């Protein structure tokens, strides 16, 4: 847990209140016994068992001692004992929890089994049991409460350790010869610290309550020592005479217990899912950057997609906004296949999502012009846009497992699309689903339609995803890395399927991929993205004459089956810029061999050849020999 997260936990109002209370309690614990320790012991024979008076606001006990002072002074003992018990619980729990990781397989299983058994016992029962074993008194109670909490803490540690143990870096450390104990101390415990801290905090709260309970029952702190629990017990005897005597220690226990629990909860919240609030950037922010943006080319005739100066922004963690998509212009004609290539983080997927109106809620999407399948989504209510685009735009994602509902049969999910959008009957929709599964060559479609997504192989799921897109007649199919998780043989089938579908339905296809060879196989036109912008667009046949240094470097750096093995591969030095601090001017400049002063101004897309545009001040004109060889030579 980083310092920022701790701070965030405190910024949360509940967390701040809880932390404030705990600080107050800590101060009390330190100073109260020093200031009032003696006064709280002072017996006053003249004021035995009094109610509230001006001298003793909460009254006095049977020996005439001031109850308010006693409650304040008891803070130290109560908190101290609770923390001690928590410490015992945490130490015992961690030891038991990591033991299976240190011991061999068999002994480890024994420990796990024992812990599971102990967890099954109610905690209070366990505490009472231990209290009897260790004997009545503060020491016994601390041990009892600490040990009673240990099994559940141990289990928490065990599950967390097991999760971290499965990660590659632990395996790597093992292979490097790191011993078991060091493995636990350096790799396992530090990486499970967060849930442990949260739980220990919550645990302290319940230890406090449990302790009060034991003392109240007379099993805990023994006279003349006293804690809140004992004060509560004494007060309760006279609750009808002086209710404050019982209420005050009771309130103290509850407040302190709550403070621990709430602090734990608010830390947990910060560590876990961070709440996102929908925000919008100031308008001036958008206008300023729109200046040098890439615009869609002149658009003769009709289009299925026009995006002009498309920008997608997110609130930056340190304030302000970042724009992973920063002025993209994109035009797709009906029936065209366009490939978008770029490295991870270049904004390819976000562009696609924004076009399909599927950008995340926190994103801010703006465009000078945006038209998808004849629909202008801007200025319309979201539900209406979804409705309009639902049948006209189909999306195919990289991981179809996450895009299917795992608990619904594939056929039903496909059928749902038409039922929702076209109000078809159940039977007709299912028949169409089977038909579409057959179209995408899923074998035995009737049987497959009744299966669940996890019963499909990766390639088959991807085909089912395409089938889902075909349930209506889309004008535009956007496929985002549809074959990245697949084997080459299956990849080829899925790409061919997309091509067939496109030929049959006349839909336009936008294929997003990091693999330029894949794009070159399927598409007619390639759009190259870098750092949130389009840097070049050109017909596939012209790839050998790519003009932008980035496109050329990308082509040269990927080995294929004809690459000279004796020559090092071309590389691109450095790494793509973070969207938060992109260089001014050409974003590729820090990695570009041809960069000069001119490149400090952002280049716009400009024609360099027929149908080819590049955003570069110094476009290259000589053909790329490497690519040309391959392009003309074909497969050996």
């Amino acid at each position, binding site marked *: 847990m980083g310092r920022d997260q701790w701070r965030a936990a405190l910024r949360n109002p509940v967390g701040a209140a809880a932390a404030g209370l705990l600080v107050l309690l800590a101060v009390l614990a330190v100073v109260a016994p020093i200031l009032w320790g003696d006064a709280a012991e002072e017996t006053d024979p003249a004021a035995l068992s009094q109610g509230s008076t001006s001298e003793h606001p909460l009254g006095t006990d049977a020996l005439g001692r001031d109850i308010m002072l006693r409650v304040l002074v008891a803070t130290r003992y109560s908190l101290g004992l609770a923390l001690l018990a928590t410490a015992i619980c945490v130490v015992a729990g961690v030891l038991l929890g990591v033991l299976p990781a240190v011991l061999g397989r068999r002994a480890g299983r024994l420990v796990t089994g024992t812990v599971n058994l102990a967890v099954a016992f109610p905690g209070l029962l366990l505490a009472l049991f231990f209290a009897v074993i260790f004997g009545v008194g503060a020491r016994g109670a601390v041990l009892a409460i600490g040990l009673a909490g240990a099994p559940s803490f141990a289990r928490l540690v065990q599950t967390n350790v097991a999760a971290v143990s499965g990660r*590659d870096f632990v395996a*790597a450390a093992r292979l490097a010869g790191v011993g078991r104990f060091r493995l636990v101390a350096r790799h396992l415990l530090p990486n499970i610290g967060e849930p442990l801290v949260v739980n220990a905090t919550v645990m302290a709260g319940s230890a406090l309550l449990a302790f009060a309970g034991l003392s109240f029952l007379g099993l805990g702190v023994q006279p003349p020592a006293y804690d809140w629990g004992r004060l509560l017990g004494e007060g309760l005897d006279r609750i009808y005479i002086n209710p404050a005597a019982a209420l005050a220690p009771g309130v103290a226990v509850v407040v302190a217990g709550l403070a621990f629990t709430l602090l734990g909860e608010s830390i947990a919240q910060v560590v876990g899912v961070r709440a996102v609030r929908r925000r919008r950037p100031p308008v001036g922010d958008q206008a300023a950057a729109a200046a040098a943006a890439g615009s869609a080319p002149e658009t003769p005739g009709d289009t299925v997609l026009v995006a002009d100066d498309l920008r997608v922004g997110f609130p930056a963690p340190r304030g302000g906004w970042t724009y992973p998509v920063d002025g993209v212009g994109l035009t797709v004609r009906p029936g065209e296949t366009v490939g978008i290539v770029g490295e991870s983080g270049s904004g390819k997927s976000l562009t696609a999502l924004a076009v399909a109106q599927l950008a995340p809620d926190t994103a801010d999407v703006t465009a000078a012009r945006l038209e998808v399948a004849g629909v202008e989504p801007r200025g319309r209510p979201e539900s209406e846009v979804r409705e309009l685009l639902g049948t006209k735009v189909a999306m195919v994602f990289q991981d179809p497992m996450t895009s299917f509902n795992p608990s619904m049969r594939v056929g039903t999910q496909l059928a749902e699309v038409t039922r929702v959008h076209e109000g078809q009957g159940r039977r007709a929709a299912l028949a169409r689903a089977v038909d579409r599964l057959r179209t995408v060559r899923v074998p035995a479609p009737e049987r497959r339609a009744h299966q669940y997504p996890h019963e499909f192989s990766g390639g*088959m799921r991807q085909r089912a995803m395409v089938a889902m897109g075909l349930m209506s007649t889309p004008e535009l199919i956007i496929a985002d890395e549809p074959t990245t998780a697949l084997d*080459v043989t299956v990849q080829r089938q899925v790409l061919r399927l997309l091509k067939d579908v496109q030929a049959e339905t006349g839909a336009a296809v936008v294929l997003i991929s990091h693999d*330029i060879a894949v794009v070159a196989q399927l598409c007619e036109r390639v759009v190259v993205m870098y750092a949130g912008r389009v840097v070049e667009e050109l017909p596939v046949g012209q790839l050998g004459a790519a003009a932008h240094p980035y496109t050329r470097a990308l082509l040269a*750096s990927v080995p294929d*089956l004809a690459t000279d093995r004796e020559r090092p*591969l071309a*590389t691109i030095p450095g790494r793509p810029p973070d969207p938060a601090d992109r260089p001014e001017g050409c974003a590729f400049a820090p990695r570009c061999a041809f960069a000069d002063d001119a490149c400090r101004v952002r280049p716009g897309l400009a024609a360099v050849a027929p149908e080819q545009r590049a955003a570069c001040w110094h476009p290259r004109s000589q053909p790329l020999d490497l690519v040309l060889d391959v392009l003309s030579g074909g*497969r050996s």
Partner: protein
Amino acid sequence: MRELSFEGTTVRFGSGRSALTAVDGVDLTVPAGSVVGLVGESGSGKSTLAKAAVGLVPTTSGEIRLDGAPLRTRRDRRRLQLVFQDPHASLDPRMTVGESIAEALRGRRRSARAAEVARLLELVDLDPARARSLPSGLSGGQRQRVALARALAAEPEVVLADEITSALDVSVQGSVLNLVRDLQRRLGLTILFISHNLSVVRYVSDVIAVMYLGRIVEAGPADAVLSSPRHPYTRTLLDAAPAFGVALDDPVPADDPRLDTEAPSPHDPPTGCRFHRRCPIGPLTRPERTICAETDPQPGAPDRPHRSACHFASETLTLEVPAR
């Protein structure tokens, strides 16, 4: 550097109906000072084979040897080092780069350690000052270099690299491949290089072994395997590899509609030749080849060219392209 050899290595997971043989009697030798590339589709058992070698999964039977001596103890296994696919997962996020590397160094003094860490970082083309960075501050390519440096720190006899470039961006992949090739030449490393990408494997390997459903179906010198493959599965892989100037429309033999489109379940591998339901020259296209569905071609493999697990390996592979 020494020779790593697998002899009849078998790894079985689970039991009963969920049992599956992920690696099935693999014989494979990685000669000292050379790079053997292992290709195959996902689930074919490549990673499991590498994990078995370093002892991350137990072998069911067979022997794994270094220069003829069986690997038995943890100490033996430390002479092999595995580099993982995902550099974001294989480095402890809480430890600096230097600490991660130093952990793999043995019995050196503190000052000697720091010097060694710096040397290793330089070896993988990283600034030694990076020793103080946390992995979160590094790019994928840089992290993969650190992972390589950590593997080298243990002074391994053999390095096993499992898909080390597949999680990287294409623009960084090249530099990591250059580094692997360069390190191998400079230090004479023995490497088992695993990848599903034939072009990548071809670029770094001297020998290529092709794995299908837990078995090596073809192995031989890289050029020979790629230019005249002896197993129809290798041919299928070559045909499917995306390449410039090859249109999707050009049908390849594996596009024959009579064939299964995907690998069979490893829980229930086909009888006889495991590839027979996808084989373009097998029984589904040539009904007279009943032997393929009945007799396992694996046992005769050592006598065939490229140790091919195909009854018809000696035939020149003439494949008919199906009409579309």
